[in-house]
């Protein structure tokens, strides 16, 4: 009996201890998992005497669903460019005017007038990257700057291709490979896209995340991949190269923004300004290994990231990269149907 009462008391104590009181000087960050540099957070905490709590999410859709429902208690959220228009149009973000903040001068001009937040009234660049193709040069010596690597794999690569199961990225690449614009409603193009994907699928080994190890160990020889993952694979296997498909490839960018019903707006604004400082932005990139949008931050990044071919897009292939933006609902529905049919 006593033991049971003990359990009950313990359970109550646990419940009580975790209902954190809202003390002064707090900041609640809701960000992608494994994405927030602890050193940078520590520095922010020490500088401004603010207690920072970082909570992870694993997809834009989870984050969106959660903030939309309310009662979450988050101040900062870091949505991807693709969903930024939804966040803004649904009134989920505070118009915090980062463009008027002190450190805004450090933002690289190419990331200021972005289509998803023109003039940066809501958000600050966190990190950005591309989705392209990873190829092991020892298996295939031809041109790697093409989506044909996974949509029409050369004989050497058949059965050794992995496609990350990220619908919008893969569809973006497939549609542009078929000759269309991303999010096109052109039925002829979409039909061609579907046929290309379905014909290519038997030549793939898998559609999975977390493939750095397999590229290092030569289990996989090619595939759709993020530039950062490809970069890490190259550090373990020098044959691994990263290609930017000339037909078209998606650029993604995650953007730190303040939630509309944030409780700690002042601290959140301090934080946005803080991460536009080159040194702090450099810390973010050092941790998560993607580029940020802040000028002069390279000076604070590890040497192996400087001039890395996965980060510096070759001049002649820059134009092929386009922001991956959310498609209109009716187009999205068609994409989902093609995607389901592909994986039935």
């Amino acid at each position, binding site marked *: 009996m006593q033991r049971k009462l003990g359990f009950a008391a313990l359970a109550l104590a646990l419940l009580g201890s975790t209902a954190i009181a809202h003390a002064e000087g707090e900041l609640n960050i809701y960000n992608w998992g494994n994405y927030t540099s602890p050193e940078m957070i520590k520095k922010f905490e020490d500088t401004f005497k603010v207690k920072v709590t970082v*909570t992870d999410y694993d997809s834009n859709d989870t984050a969106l*669903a959660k903030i939309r429902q309310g009662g979450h208690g988050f101040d900062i959220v870091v949505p991807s460019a693709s969903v930024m228009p939804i966040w803004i149009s649904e009134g989920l973000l505070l118009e915090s005017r980062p463009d008027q903040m002190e450190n805004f001068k450090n933002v690289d001009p190419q990331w200021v007038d972005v289509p998803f937040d023109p003039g940066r009234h809501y958000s600050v660049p966190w990190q950005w990257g591309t989705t392209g193709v990873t190829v092991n040069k020892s298996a295939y010596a031809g041109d790697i700057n093409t989506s044909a690597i996974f949509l029409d794999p050369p004989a050497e690569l058949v059965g050794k291709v992995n496609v990350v199961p990220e619908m919008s990225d893969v569809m973006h690449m497939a549609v542009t490979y078929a000759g269309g614009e991303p999010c096109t409603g052109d039925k002829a193009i979409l039909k061609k896209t579907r046929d290309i994907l379905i014909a290519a699928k038997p030549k793939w080994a898998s559609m999975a995340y977390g493939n750095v190890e397999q590229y290092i160990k030569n289990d996989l020889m090619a595939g759709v991949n993020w530039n950062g993952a490809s970069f890490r694979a190259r550090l373990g296997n020098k044959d691994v190269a990263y290609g930017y498909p000339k037909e078209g490839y998606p650029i993604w960018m995650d953007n730190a923004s303040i939630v509309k019903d944030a409780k700690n707006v002042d601290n959140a604004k301090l934080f946005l300004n803080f991460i536009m400082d080159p040194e702090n932005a450099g810390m973010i990139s050092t941790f998560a290994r993607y580029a940020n949008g802040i000028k002069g931050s390279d000076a604070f990044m590890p040497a192996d990231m400087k001039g890395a071919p996965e980060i510096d897009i070759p001049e002649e292939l820059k134009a092929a990269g386009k922001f991956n933006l959310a498609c209109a609902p009716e187009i999205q529905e068609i994409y989902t149907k093609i995607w389901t049919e592909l994986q039935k």
Partner: protein
Amino acid sequence: MARQFSVKRLPGFSTIAMICFIGLYMPIVTLVVYAFNAGTSIAVWEGFSLRWFYSAWNNTQVVDASIRSLQIAFCAAIVATVVATMAAIATTRTAQYRGLTFKYAFINLPLLVPEIVTAVALLIFFSQIKVYTGYSGLGYLIAAHAAFCIPFAYLPIRARLESMDLTLERAAADLYATPFQAFRYVTLPLLWPGILAGMILGFVISLDDVVITEFVKSGGQDTLPTYMLGQLRRVVTPEMNAISTVFLLLSFAIVTIFFFLSRNEKTS
């Protein structure tokens, strides 16, 4: 052939059991080995090192998430086991009565609904409560976990009850034991293996849950699985192996303590 005939022995069963145990522990061994990897990979061996244990220990997010996972699993398993035991007693060893089948189906319902569905629905439901009450503690996660642990605790307990006979309890009643005494000294000890099985299942299931937790958690409430989920798209380092190894050690420690406790009980 030389072995003595035993009614309990069934040929091949021990062999299959051993294959099971080896199979269960083979991945666990690789997992533990790579926790000591000097390199950053969970599959390429680069020499022995304790760096990932240091790094996990210094990673406050990981340490907090681990403790939180254990707290939730512990509370949820206790709650689920207690209510499931009561429900199991209420739904077994009885003539069919109105609502019995209904109860049975009802109790197993959390098992039937896909996790993502429960997750989205609980998000909608709990968010409203959070907005109205302002409480955003671990209670929501414990309630959600306890609910989906109930069938896992209920089914083994019920199975145990169904294969138990009533004579002992009747005998106790005949000897003027109060119903509570009969329960405490007769039913409960007999039921204990079922309860233990149910509680372990509930604990382990809660410890592993990711989807529901991901949707229900409030700020600062990451558990180990949700922390791990965030890593899936980026890169998995042996840090996770190191944490898992610590969890394994912890479970071994608990088993050992449990073993000595139960031995003392026997001897006293």
